[in-house]
C-alpha cells in the first residue's frame, strides 16, 4: 500500500483480526452450533449425547495428541548432542516472549520440521538428521541467521495459537466424521433389527413362551414369569410401539446426520486447507516482524530447500517427457493424503520449493510471472486439444490450489511484500462466503436445526456473512484506507446471485412437476415433510392443503428471502463501513493501539445485534407471519434492540466528535480520510503507526 508521499507502507497483520482465528471460529460454529442447537430441542432420537460427545471428545483427543504423535512418528526427547539447538529454541522463545519454551523431539524417521502440542505441552519435532543439520547451521556464521529464521517461524505458530486452534479443529472434524459415521452404521443396524423384530414383538406372549419350556418345573416357570413383563404391560407397550413408524425414525436419523457428514467432508477438504495455508502466512509474517527484514523469509526458504535437496535421478534418454503425468499423479497422491488416517504431518517448508530461484537476481523475474505456479507444467499437444487441456489444467491447478495445505513459495514471498494479500480480494471473499452459505444451507436441511430455521430462516446465513465480511474484508480494507463501497456491492451480489443460481432451477423444477405430475409432487413433498418435520413432532397434519398454493408460496418466500437478505447485507455493510471509516479518523483517541480495534469489534457487534434483534425478526415476521407483526413480544424486542443500538450510536457520535479529525500532537485539523501511513500535515506525526509493519523489503 503506497501513501501520497509514495512511501511503501506495509500493513501490520497483527493489528487486525486474525484470519486464522476467523476461519477457526467459523468451522467450530458451523459444526458444533448445529449439533448443540439440535441437542437442545426435542427429537425422536437422542441428539444431546452426540452434542456432548462432539464438544468433549475432540478436546480429549487434542490433549492426547502429543502422545499420539510421539507414538506415530517415533519421537523421543532430543539428547545432549542437540543441546545447541535446544538453547537456540529457548533463546528465540524468550525473544518473542513465549510463555513457555517448546521441547525438542527427534525421530529416526524422516519427519519434517513441525510443531504440535496441547495447551501446556509444546513441542518442535524433526527428523534427527534435519535437527543435526539445523544445529550445524546455527554454528555456521553464514547460515545461523537462516536457521534462526526457521526456528522463529515455528515458534510463531505457538505465539499465534496455531497449535490449539488447528489442533482442536482437526480433532473436531475427525471426531465428527467418525462419530456421525458410526451413528449411521449403528442406527441403521438397530433400525433394521427393530423392523424385522417388530412383527414378532407384536405377537410376543411371555406366558406362552415360558409354558413352552417343558423342562422347567412350575416354580422355575413362575420365577421367569415374574422377571418378564406382564400381559398388561405388554399390551401397553404394543399400543405405543404401533404408533412408531420405524421407517420414518430411520429416515429422520439419516436426514439429521447425513448433512453433518457432508459439511464436515467439505470443511475438511477446503476450509481446513485454507486454515493451514493462512497459518503459514501468519507465521512467516511473525518471523519477518521479529527479524525486521523480509529478506529473512527468502533466505530461510533457500536454506531449507538446499538442506532438503537430494540429487535428481538421471532421466533415461529418448524417453518422452512425462512431467504433466507426474504432476497429475503427485496431485492425486496429495488429494488422497487428505483422507488418510493418521493425517500426515505438514512441514513448515515442505512444498513449492522446486522452482524457487537460488540467486536473488532471479527473484524479481520469479515474482513477476503472472499466473504461473511453482508446480506448473508444459503441454506439448497442439490445436484445439491444447486449449481444452490448458483450460482443464488451469482448473485442476486452481482446485489443487484450494486443497493444498501449504502456500507455495511465491505466495509466501508476495504476502510478505504485501501483507494485505492475506485478506484476499473481493472475489476470493465472495467465493468463500458463497461456499459458506451453501454449506449452511446443507446444514439447515438437517431436521436438527428445523425449529430455529423454520422460524428464523434468514438469521444464520445473514449474520455469518455479515461478521465474516466485516472482520475478514471490510476492516482490513478500511484500515488501509481503501474504498469499499463497490467491492461490498460486488461481494453481496455474488453471494446472493449464486444462491439464486441454484434456487431458480429448483423452483423451476417444482413448477414443472406441478404442471406435469402433480400427484408425484404431492407425494414427494409430503414424504419430505414427514422425514424432516413430522417425526420430530413439529407437524402432525398434512403438509399442505393446496399443492399449487404451497408451491407458489414456497417460491415467493424463497425468492423474497434472497432479495431481503441482499438488501439487509448491503445496507448493514455500508453502514458498518461508514462507521469504521469514521473510526479510523479518531487520531487523538487515547491508547488507540490497545483500544481502537475493540471499538471496531463493538461496531461490528452492534451491527450484528441490531440485525439479530430488530431488522431480521421484523423482516422475517413480515414475510412469513405478517399477522404477528404487531404482537407485543416482537415489538418489545425490536424496541429493546433499537434502544440499545441507538444508545451505542449516540456514544459513538460523542466519541467521534471528541476524537475525530484532530492531531493528538498539535491539535491541528486533519482533512481527508485515513490511509496507511497518513501524517499530520502540520507537525508530521504518523497517525496509527501501529498499523504499519516495521520491516524492510
Amino acid at each position, binding site marked *: 500500500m503506497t501513501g501520497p508521499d509514495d512511501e511503501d507502507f506495509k500493513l501490520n497483520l497483527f493489528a487486525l483480526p486474525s484470519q486464522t482465528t476467523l476461519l477457526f471460529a467459523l468451522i467450530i460454529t458451523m459444526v458444533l452450533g448445529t449439533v448443540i442447537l439440535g441437542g437442545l430441542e426435542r427429537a425422536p432420537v437422542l441428539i444431546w449425547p452426540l452434542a456432548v460427545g462432539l464438544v468433549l471428545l475432540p478436546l480429549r483427543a487434542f490433549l492426547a495428541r502429543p502422545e499420539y504423535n510421539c507414538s506415530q512418528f517415533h519421537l523421543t526427547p532430543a539428547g545432549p548432542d542437540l543441546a545447541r539447538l535446544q538453547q537456540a529454541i529457548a533463546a528465540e522463545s524468550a525473544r518473542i516472549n513465549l510463555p513457555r519454551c517448546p521441547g525438542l523431539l527427534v525421530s529416526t524417521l524422516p519427519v519434517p520440521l513441525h510443531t504440535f502440542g496441547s495447551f501446556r505441552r509444546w513441542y518442535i519435532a524433526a527428523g534427527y538428521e534435519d535437527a543435526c543439520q539445523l544445529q550445524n547451521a546455527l554454528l555456521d556464521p553464514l547460515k545461523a541467521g537462516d536457521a534462526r529464521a526457521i526456528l522463529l517461524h515455528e515458534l510463531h505458530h505457538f505465539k499465534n495459537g496455531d497449535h490449539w486452534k488447528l489442533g482442536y479443529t482437526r480433532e473436531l472434524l475427525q471426531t465428527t466424521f467418525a462419530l456421525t459415521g458410526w451413528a449411521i452404521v449403528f442406527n441403521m443396524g438397530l433400525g433394521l433389527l427393530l423392523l424385522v423384530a417388530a412383527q414378532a414383538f407384536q405377537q410376543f406372549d411371555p406366558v406362552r413362551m415360558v409354558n*413352552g419350556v417343558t423342562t422347567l418345573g412350575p416354580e422355575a416357570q413362575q420365577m421367569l414369569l415374574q422377571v418378564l413383563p406382564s400381559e398388561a404391560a405388554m399390551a401397553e407397550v404394543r399400543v405405543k410401539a404401533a404408533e412408531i413408524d420405524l421407517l420414518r425414525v430411520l429416515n429422520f436419523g439419516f436426514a439429521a446426520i447425513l448433512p453433518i457428514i457432508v459439511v464436515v467432508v467439505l470443511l475438511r477438504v477446503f476450509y481446513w486447507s485454507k486454515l493451514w495455508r493462512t497459518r503459514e502466512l501468519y507465521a512467516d509474517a511473525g518471523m519477518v516482524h521479529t527479524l525486521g527484514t523480509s529478506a529473512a523469509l527468502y533466505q530461510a526458504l533457500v536454506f531449507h530447500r538446499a538442506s532438503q535437496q537430494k540429487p535428481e535421478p538421471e532421466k533415461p534418454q529418448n524417453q518422452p517427457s512425462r512431467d504433466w503425468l507426474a504432476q497429475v499423479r503427485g496431485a492425486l497422491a496429495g488429494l488422497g493424503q487428505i483422507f488418510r488416517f493418521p493425517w500426515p504431518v505438514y512441514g513448515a517448508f515442505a512444498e513449492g520449493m522446486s522452482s524457487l530461484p537460488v540467486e536473488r537476481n532471479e527473484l524479481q523475474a520469479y515474482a513477476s510471472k503472472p499466473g504461473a505456479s511453482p508446480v506448473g507444467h508444459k503441454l506439448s499437444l497442439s490445436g484445439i486439444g491444447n486449449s481444452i487441456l490448458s483450460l482443464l489444467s488451469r482448473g485442476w491447478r486452481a482446485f489443487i490450489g484450494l486443497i493444498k495445505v501449504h502456500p507455495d513459495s511465491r505466495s509466501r514471498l508476495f504476502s510478505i511484500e504485501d501483507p494485505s494479500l492475506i485478506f484476499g480480494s473481493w472475489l476470493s471473499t465472495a467465493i468463500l462466503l458463497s461456499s459458506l452459505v451453501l454449506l449452511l444451507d446443507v446444514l439447515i436441511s438437517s431436521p436438527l436445526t428445523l425449529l430455529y430455521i423454520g422460524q428464523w430462516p434468514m438469521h444464520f446465513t445473514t449474520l455469518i456473512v455479515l461478521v465474516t465480511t466485516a472482520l475478514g474484508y471490510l476492516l482490513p480494507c478500511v484500515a488501509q484506507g481503501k474504498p469499499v463501497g463497490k467491492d461490498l456491492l460486488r461481494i453481496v451480489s455474488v453471494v446472493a446471485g449464486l444462491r439464486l443460481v441454484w434456487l431458480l432451477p429448483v423452483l423451476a423444477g417444482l413448477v414443472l412437476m406441478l404442471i406435469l405430475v402433480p400427484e408425484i409432487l404431492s407425494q414427494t413433498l409430503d414424504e419430505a415433510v414427514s422425514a424432516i418435520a413430522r417425526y420430530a413432532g413439529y407437524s402432525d397434519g398434512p403438509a399442505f392443503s393446496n399443492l399449487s398454493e404451497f408451491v407458489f408460496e414456497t417460491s415467493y418466500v424463497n425468492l423474497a428471502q434472497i432479495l431481503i437478505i441482499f438488501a439487509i447485507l448491503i445496507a448493514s455493510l455500508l453502514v458498518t463501513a461508514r462507521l469504521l471509516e469514521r473510526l479510523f479518523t479518531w487520531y487523538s483517541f487515547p491508547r488507540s493501539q490497545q483500544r481502537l480495534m475493540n471499538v471496531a469489534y463493538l461496531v461490528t457487534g452492534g451491527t450484528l445485534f441490531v440485525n439479530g434483534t430488530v431488522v431480521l425478526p421484523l423482516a422475517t415476521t413480515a414475510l412469513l407471519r405478517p399477522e404477528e407483526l404487531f404482537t407485543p413480544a416482537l415489538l418489545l424486542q425490536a424496541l429493546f434492540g433499537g434502544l440499545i443500538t441507538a444508545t451505542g450510536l449516540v456514544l459513538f457520535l460523542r466519541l467521534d466528535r471528541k476524537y475525530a479529525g484532530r492531531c493528538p500532537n498539535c491539535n491541528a485539523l486533519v482533512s481527508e480520510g485515513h490511509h496507511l501511513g497518513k501524517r499530520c500535515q502540520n507537525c508530521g506525526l504518523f497517525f496509527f503507526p501501529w498499523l504499519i509493519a516495521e520491516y524492510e523489503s
Partner: protein
Amino acid sequence: MNRANIAVWLARLAWGVIVFDLILIFILPETFGPDAVVILVAISLWLVLSLWLATTGLMVYYRRIFYTWAGWALPVTGLIASNTLMAAGWPEANSRLSLLVTLTFATCTWGVGVATALLLWRRDAGLGMLGWMLAAFTWVAFFAWRIHGNLIEISFLSINNPNATWPLWWINPLFCLLGWSVPLGIASFCIHTVKIIAREYNAGH
C-alpha cells in the same frame, strides 16, 4: 531375586501347569462312577481355574504380543475355532479330545478378556472398541433374526433340548467379545482420560 527373575520363574510355572493339565486330561478315566461326582467337580474346577491362571500369567509375561491388534486376534481366533469345533460335536468318539476342545473354549473365553485388557491398557481404543462392537452386534442380530426368526423364542425353546446344539452357536464369540468390551472399554476410556488430564495438569507444574 529381582522382579525379572520372578517373572521368568512364574512364566515357567505357568507353562508347567499347562503341561500338567494336558497330561491330566489324557490320563483321566473315560467314565466316572456315580460316587465320583465330587472328584469330577474338583478336577473340572482345577482344570478351568489353573488354565485361567496360567493363561493370564503367560499373557502378561508375553504382553508385548497383545499390545497389537494382531496379538489380540490370537485368542479371538482360538475362541471362534474352539466354538466351531464344539458346535460340530468334534471329535465324536474321543471324549478326551472333546474335553480338550471344551477347555480350550473356556480358556479362550478368559484369554479374550485378558488380551482385551492388555490391548486397552496400552492403547486408548476403549471407546472405539465399545462403539464398533455394539454396532457389529446390532447387524449380527439383524441378520440372525432375518435367517432364523425370533431369536428370543429360539433361545427359550432350546432349553427343552439341552443336548442339542444351540442353533445360534455362532453368536457365542460375539457375546464373549461384547461382554468383555463393555466393561473394559468403559474402564479403559476412563483411565486414559484421567491419565491425559493428569499429564496436562502436571505439565504446567
